[in-house]
C-alpha cells in the first residue's frame, strides 16, 4: 500500500486543560460596562441575592486563547472520524458524511443563541422545524405521532420501555406484564435498557439462517409479555422477513410491538414500521439522517407511535394550531409516561436532519437506501473474495445495508484473528471495529458502507483488507508487531471490563487514578 497510506498517527502527550491551568490566565476578558451604563442598570453582580453567591469560585481551568486553541488542535490531530477516514468499519453505526452547510445552519446565531425556556411565541421557527420533522417521519415510518425528546438511540429505547410501562399501567396490567422479548442480534440496548427499566428480558436465539427462532418465540410469549423490542434488519445485516408474524403473535398476546430503527439506512422508502404492524419505532437522527454522532451525544432518538399511543408520549410534544397559525408545546397528555429528558429535543441535531431530508426529498431518501444497499453488496462480493474471510450465517447470504463477516478461516490458517487485523488496520490511518456483543460469530467484523462512500473509497478499504490478509498468510511478523504507525500499541481491556475502574468525571478520575492509567492502591 503506497500513496496516502504511508501514514503515521500524531501523538501529543497532551495534558488535560485542568492540568494546564495557571492562576489569572484568561481566554476572553469581557469589557467593563461604562460608568453611565452601570449607573442605569447596576454592575450586574451586586443585585444577585446573597444566598445564591458561591463562597468559593468554581474550579474552572484558567488558560489564554492561543494555548486553548493549540490544546484542541492537538487533540483533533489525534482523532479519527468520518471527515478524516473511510469510515465504513464501524458496522451498525451508520457512519456517513454530514454536509457542512447543515453544520453551518445548525451553528447559526439564530439557533445557537436560543434558550429552551424561551416563550413559545419567540421560538416559532425552531418549533416549526420540530413539527415539520415529525410530519416527515409520519411518511417515513407510517406512524402518526412524534416525540423528539430522546437524546440518543438507547434513550429512544428507554422512551419506548417507559411508554410500554405507562400503557400497561393504565390498563391495569403493569404488575403482571413484566417481560420484554428481544432477539440475539437486535442492538444490545434493546436488552439492556428494558432491564434498567425493571423488566425481565427474554432473548431469542437465531435459527440456522440467522433469523430469530420462531419456535423459541412461541415458547417465550405469554401473558407476562409486555412488549417485543426488535431491530430489523438485525446487526448481521439480515432482514427478518417474518416480522409480521412476530408482531401478529405479540398482538394476540396483548403485547406492544416496539421497533428499533436506530439504523434505518437500508429501508428508507422500502419498508415501514406501519406495514410491519409496530406500535412504535425510534430513529437515530445522528445515524441514518446524517447528523454527526457527536462522540456519544448529544443526539436524537426520534420516537414515532400510533395515534392510539399519543397520550402516552413523553410530554411535551410539538403541535400546530392551524386557526392561529401557531406552533406550540402540548403538555396535555393525560397518560404521559413522563419526561425522558429536559425540554423538547436537541435542536442542532434536529435542524441538521431536517435540512438533510429537505435537501433530498422523497426520491433522494429512496436513493440513499438504494445506494447504501448497493454499496454494501458490492463490498460484500469483494470482501468475501479476500482470503480467509467468510460471511456469518451463509445459509442466508442476502444482506441489506451491513454484513457481519467472520475471519474464522484466516484464524484457523494463520492464528491471526479479528483483533490482530484491527491492530494492523490502524497503520493505514483508518478504522476497523470488531462488532459489538454477543460475540458468537467467530472472529467477527461488521462493515457498513453507507451511501456516503464512493466506489474508489470502498476499493481502497478493500485493498487494505486484502493487504492485511496477505500479510497474515505471508508476512506474519508485520501483523505480530502491529501497529507500526500508530501511537498506542496495546490497550488494556481490563479497564473497560471492570466497572470499578471506570472514571466518567474528572473528579472521579482524580480520585481513582494518580497518573495516566495507573490505579491508585486499594483504599
Amino acid at each position, binding site marked *: 500500500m503506497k500513496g496516502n497510506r504511508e501514514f503515521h498517527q500524531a501523538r501529543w502527550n497532551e495534558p488535560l486543560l485542568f492540568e494546564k491551568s495557571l492562576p489569572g490566565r484568561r481566554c476572553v476578558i469581557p469589557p467593563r460596562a461604562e460608568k453611565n451604563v452601570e449607573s442605569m442598570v447596576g454592575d450586574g453582580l451586586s443585585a444577585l441575592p446573597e444566598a445564591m453567591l458561591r463562597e468559593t469560585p468554581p474550579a474552572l481551568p484558567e488558560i489564554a486563547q492561543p494555548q486553548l486553541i493549540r490544546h484542541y488542535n492537538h487533540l483533533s490531530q489525534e482523532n479519527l472520524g468520518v471527515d478524516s477516514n473511510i469510515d465504513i468499519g464501524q458496522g451498525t453505526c451508520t457512519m456517513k458524511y454530514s454536509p457542512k452547510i447543515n453544520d453551518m445552519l445548525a451553528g447559526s446565531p439564530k439557533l445557537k443563541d436560543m434558550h429552551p425556556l424561551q416563550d413559545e411565541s419567540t421560538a416559532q421557527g425552531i418549533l416549526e422545524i420540530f413539527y415539520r420533522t415529525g410530519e416527515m417521519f409520519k411518511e417515513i415510518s407510517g406512524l402518526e405521532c412524534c416525540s423528539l425528546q430522546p437524546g440518543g438511540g438507547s434513550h429512544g429505547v428507554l422512551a419506548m420501555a417507559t411508554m410500554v410501562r405507562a400503557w400497561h399501567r393504565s390498563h391495569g396490567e403493569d404488575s403482571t406484564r413484566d417481560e420484554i422479548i428481544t432477539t440475539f442480534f437486535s442492538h444490545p440496548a434493546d*436488552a439492556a435498557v428494558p*432491564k434498567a427499566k*425493571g*423488566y*425481565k*428480558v*427474554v*432473548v*431469542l*436465539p437465531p435459527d440456522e439462517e440467522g433469523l430469530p*427462532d420462531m*419456535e*423459541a*418465540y412461541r*415458547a*417465550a410469549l405469554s401473558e407476562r409479555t409486555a412488549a417485543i423490542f426488535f431491530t430489523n434488519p438485525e446487526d448481521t445485516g439480515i432482514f427478518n422477513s417474518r416480522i409480521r408474524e412476530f408482531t401478529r403473535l405479540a398482538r394476540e398476546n396483548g403485547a406492544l410491538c416496539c421497533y428499533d430503527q436506530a439504523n434505518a439506512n437500508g429501508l428508507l422508502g422500502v419498508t415501514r414500521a406501519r406495514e410491519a404492524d409496530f406500535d412504535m419505532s425510534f430513529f437515530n437522527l445522528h445515524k441514518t439522517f446524517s447528523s454527526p454522532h457527536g462522540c456519544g451525544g448529544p443526539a436524537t432518538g426520534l420516537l414515532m407511535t400510533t395515534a392510539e399511543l399519543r397520550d402516552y408520549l413523553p410530554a411535551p410534544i410539538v403541535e400546530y394550531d392551524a386557526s392561529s397559525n401557531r406552533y406550540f408545546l402540548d403538555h396535555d397528555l393525560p397518560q404521559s409516561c413522563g419526561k425522558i429528558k429536559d425540554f423538547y429535543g436537541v435542536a442542532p441535531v434536529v435542524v441538521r436532519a431536517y435540512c438533510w431530508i429537505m435537501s433530498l426529498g422523497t426520491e433522494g431518501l429512496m436513493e440513499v437506501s438504494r445506494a447504501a444497499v448497493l454499496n454494501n453488496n458490492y463490498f460484500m462480493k469483494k470482501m468475501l473474495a479476500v482470503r480467509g474471510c467468510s460471511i456469518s450465517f451463509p445459509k442466508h447470504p442476502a444482506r441489506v445495508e451491513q454484513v457481519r463477516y467472520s475471519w474464522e478461516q484466516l484464524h484457523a490458517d494463520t492464528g491471526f484473528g479479528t483483533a490482530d487485523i484491527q491492530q494492523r488496520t490502524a497503520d493505514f490511518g483508518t478504522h476497523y471495529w470488531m462488532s459489538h456483543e*454477543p*460475540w*458468537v460469530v467467530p472472529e467477527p467484523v461488521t462493515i457498513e458502507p453507507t451511501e456516503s462512500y464512493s466506489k474508489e473509497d470502498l476499493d481502497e478499504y478493500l485493498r487494505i483488507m486484502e493487504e492485511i490478509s496477505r500479510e497474515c498468510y505471508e508476512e506474519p511478523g508485520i501483523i505480530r508487531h502491529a501497529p507500526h504507525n500508530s501511537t498506542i500499541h496495546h490497550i488494556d481491556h481490563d479497564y473497560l*471490563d471492570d*466497572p470499578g475502574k471506570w472514571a466518567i468525571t474528572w473528579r472521579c478520575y482524580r480520585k481513582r487514578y494518580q497518573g495516566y492509567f495507573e490505579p491508585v492502591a486499594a483504599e
Partner: protein
Amino acid sequence: MKHLGLIVNPVAGMGGRVGLKGTDGAGILKAARELGAEPTAPARASQALDKICRCGLDIRILTCDGAMGEESAARAGLTFDIVYRPDASKTTGPEDTRRAAELFAHCGCDLLLFAGGDGTARDISAAVGTDIPVLGIPAGVKIHSAVFANTPARAGELACLFLAGRCGEPREMEVMDIDEKEFREGRVRSRLYGYLRTPFEKRLLQSGKSSGGKTDRVELDGMAEQVVRMMAPDTLYLVGPGSTTAVVMEKLGLKGTLLGVDAVKNHTLTGADLSESDILKLIAAEQVELVVTVIGGQGHIFGRGNQQISPSVIRALGSERTHVIASPSKMRELFGKPLLVDTGDPQLDVELCGYKRVITGLNQELMARIEC
C-alpha cells in the same frame, strides 16, 4: 466387512446415582453397591448398538465375555466374536479394559467403541494410544474427555457414519480425567492423560469440557442475584452440582457441596450432598424446586455429573419447577448448539426436548433448545 471392537466397563457410572461422583477404585465400587447402585453401562451400550444394528452395514463385532460386551451385543441382536475373557472369579477392572483394547488393536479392528467414563478412556488410551480409531459411549459419571459422543444413540450413529466412510480422518481428541478424591472434596482439576483418535462430526461430538476458565464475575453475580430473588419463602430449593450453582450458594452465604446436590430453604442449608433417595423423600414431603446448570462446552443439563437428579426426580418436579442457570459466557460458548439431556430414560429425554428459559443474569433469560 468392517470390524468393530466393543468394550463395556460394566461398573462405569455406578457411583453417580448414589451421589459418589465416580466409580474409580474397588472401595468406592463396594460403597456404591452397598448404597444400592446397579450397573447402567451395559444398557447404555445397547442403545448405541441398536443404531448400529439398523445401519445396514456388514459389521462384525469383536467383544469381551459377559458384562464387558457380550450382554450388550446380544441384547441388541448383533452377531459377535468373543476375543477377550476376563477372569470370571474376579470383578472386572482397569486391567481388563487395557488387555481387551490391546487385543482389538492387534486384530486390526476398524473402530473401537467403548462404554464408560473418563477412567475407561484413560485405560484405553494407555493401551492403544492413537493406533486405532476409538469412540466413547458416555456411561460414566463425569465426562470430561472429548472422545465421547453426546448420547449413546449418537455414538451409534457416529460409529455407523465412520464405518460407512462418511466421516473425515479421525482427529486426536483429549482424554481428560479428574481426581475423584479431590472431586469429592469439592475441587475440579481436570488433567490431560493422552489422546485417542476419534471419528469426528461437529454436531455429534461432546466437546472437551473446560474447567477453571476465566468467567465474568459481574455477569455471574447478577445471575446468582436473580436466583436468590426468585427463591420463595418456605419452598425448598435443590441446588445441583457445578461451579455456576456454587455462586448462588456463595451469594446466600452458604457452604454448599460443589459437586453434590444441596437443599436450601428460607436461605438456610437444610441438606447437603443428597442422594437420589434423599431427594425423592424431600419431594414427597415438601414444596420443592430445582436449580441446575449447564455443563460448559457440552450443554448437558441432566445426565452428566448430576445423576442423583434421576428420571424419577425430574418427572416428580416437572419442567415448571426446574430452573436452568448459566452465565452468558457459558451460553456464548454453546452458541449454535442445543442443550442436552441424557437422563438414562430415553422416553423422558424425548419429553424434555423443546425450548427452555435459561437464567443468564439479573432480569435476563435466554431461550434455549433442548435436544437429546
